[in-house]
């Protein structure tokens, strides 16, 4: 006689869930696709964001006064006073291409950021026009052009003040309004822009992490013919689906841990490369983000299971579930550019609630516990309802029979 189970203290259905869950975890821990999705894919988003942050830190956050810039120039000797002023402001000059056409081509093709042209007619003149050949389609060109324009505006103010003083007028006489900028956002604002990309990318990965497992254990089993033998075992259908959903949830959780860890690690490294970039939120904040996303993982898996059980083939399921992560991630991308504030109503919307909370956490704002509770309850409840629907569909005869 076969032995009886040693976990008799557990209700029978929990024992059966545990048996199927263990099998799915063992099976998929040997599957290269599941492991790649869980362990490698979650690294890609963080690497991309950290790479962008590193590049932006170097490209956009340079200090005009501390770093010299070399500008290809033509005829700068015709305006010696301007030349001296620019040199005093850390501008160096190099030879420009010989012809106008070559200069324009070099700027257009990105070989040169800008070309400064001082006309011969400027020689000995108090007022003249200089030309900056630039390419507004390139961020690095904009940076140099903006810097040169700012220095030239400073030169104009300087000359205007000199002329006013020479005429016995107060400095600033020729300039009606001067602008003094005070940047309260610290120089780190560009880093914050990148950190705001974290929520939609985290949500994207949550909807992707367990997708292969969800497909493989449902419609995949049916396609391979292994679902029919499984259904011959004396196990409730909903128990089978619950165990498979829990396995997908476990893989999603691993994916999310790797994703969040990689974000914190890579962004921290990128931010530490420049003193002018603020560090990302701490590991403790990322731990809270993980906790906030648990209901999100549940609804992601419930949606995956429900789609997987109604599709006819793995290929069909892959098409639908490949698109699924885009739906919740898109509002997040919109919020990168147009932030939304959480209210009792907005956090009650499943998925959106978590997105708003993660945005707050990434922005290092304190969470309202009521918002956390509302978001967790509505999303978890929605996940449960979607799962019940999937379980109902899983009982259909069409689910079991090939063809």
């Amino acid at each position, binding site marked *: *006689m*076969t*032995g*009886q*189970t*040693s*976990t008799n203290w557990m209700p029978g259905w929990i024992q*059966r869930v545990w*048996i*199927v869950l263990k*099998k799915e975890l*063992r*099976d*998929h821990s*040997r*599957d290269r696709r599941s492991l790649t999705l869980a362990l490698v894919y979650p690294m890609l988003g963080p690497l991309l964001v950290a790479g962008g942050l590193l590049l932006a830190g170097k490209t956009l956050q340079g200090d005009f006064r501390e770093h010299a810039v070399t500008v290809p120039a033509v005829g700068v000797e015709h305006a010696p006073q301007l030349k001296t002023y620019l040199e005093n402001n850390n501008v160096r000059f190099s030879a420009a291409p010989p012809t106008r056409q070559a200069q324009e081509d070099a700027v257009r093709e990105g070989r040169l950021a800008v070309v400064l042209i001082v006309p011969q007619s400027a020689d000995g003149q108090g007022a003249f026009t200089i030309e900056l050949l630039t390419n507004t389609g390139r961020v690095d060109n904009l940076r140099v052009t903006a810097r040169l324009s700012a220095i030239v505006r400073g030169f104009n103010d300087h000359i205007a003040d000199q002329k006013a003083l020479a005429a016995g007028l107060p400095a600033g006489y020729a300039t009606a309004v001067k602008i003094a900028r005070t940047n309260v956002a610290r120089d780190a604002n560009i880093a914050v822009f990148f950190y705001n990309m974290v929520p939609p990318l985290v949500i994207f990965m949550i909807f992707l992490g367990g997708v292969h497992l969800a497909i493989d254990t449902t419609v995949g*089993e049916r396609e*391979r*013919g*292994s*679902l*029919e*033998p*499984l*259904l*011959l*075992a*004396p*196990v*409730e259908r909903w128990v089978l689906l619950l165990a498979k959903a829990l396995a997908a949830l476990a893989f999603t959780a691993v994916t999310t841990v790797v994703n969040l860890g990689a974000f914190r690690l890579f962004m921290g490294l990128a931010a530490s490369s420049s003193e002018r970039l603020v560090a990302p939120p701490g590991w403790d904040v990322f731990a809270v983000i993980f906790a906030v996303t648990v209901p999100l993982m549940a609804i992601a898996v419930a949606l995956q299971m429900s789609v997987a059980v109604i599709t006819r083939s793995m290929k069909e399921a892959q098409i639908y579930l490949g698109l699924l992560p885009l739906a919740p991630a898109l509002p997040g991308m919109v919020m990168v550019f147009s932030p939304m504030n959480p209210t009792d109503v907005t956090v009650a919307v499943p998925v959106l609630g978590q997105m708003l909370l993660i945005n707050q956490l990434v922005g290092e704002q304190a969470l309202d516990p009521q918002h956390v509770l509302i978001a967790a309850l509505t999303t978890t409840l929605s996940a449960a309802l979607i799962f019940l629907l999937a379980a109902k569909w899983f009982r259909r*005869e069409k689910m*079991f*029979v*090939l063809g």
Partner: protein
Amino acid sequence: MIEIENLTKRFDQVQALSGLSLTAQDGRVTGLIGPNGAGKTTAFRIVYGLLAPDQGCARVDGVDVAEDRMLAQRQLGVLPDVRGLYPRLSAREHIRYFGQLHGACGAALEADIDELVTRLSMGDFADRLAKGFSRGQELKVALGRALVHRPHNLILDEPTNGLDVMSSRAVRELIAEMKAEGHCILISSHIMSEVSLLCDDLVIVAEGRAVASGTPDELRTEAGADDLEEVFVRILARTSAKAEVAQ
């Protein structure tokens, strides 16, 4: 004992079963034979609780499958036509998984698995992952999976389909042993020589109902032919003729 009583089942436009009845007794091998699409697999699926009948009922050791599917399944071992193995589990893990699903565990289960590995000659591949198994190896794993909970009743759908001579013989020997142990065995096969060798009782199914039943000798007498294949062909032809007259 497996009892099928007046089963009716329809899929959209297809009438798969039209009042099929049969009984498979303990200690005997009952063969269900019929052309493709006759309703054999549908009948099996109703017996093992995968499909619900539109009318009629199926009982396993007196348990109505529709009323208590899980109790009926505990008394039933099934070898489906599609073996359906998990490519990333070993043969032993397959058998252990299904043993656990039937409520077994621990040393007793491991002893049962060892016994099945020996009985089915799986020693050389028991701990290999199923990916790349031959059809014979797949069949042995599927048999181990079906037998691990020591069911009293067995349903074997095309048990030797695609097997080589040696593997087919091994399966036939296993079926004979199980029969001698008093198990109720219901098989479906297209191989008449196999049916002739194995079956004590035959049920010929056509268009979703039993058109003839009895021992092989009784059917030979009824059809007036010695060769079982010829018996099968004559009975089907007679059934078609009757159906045309009725129309």
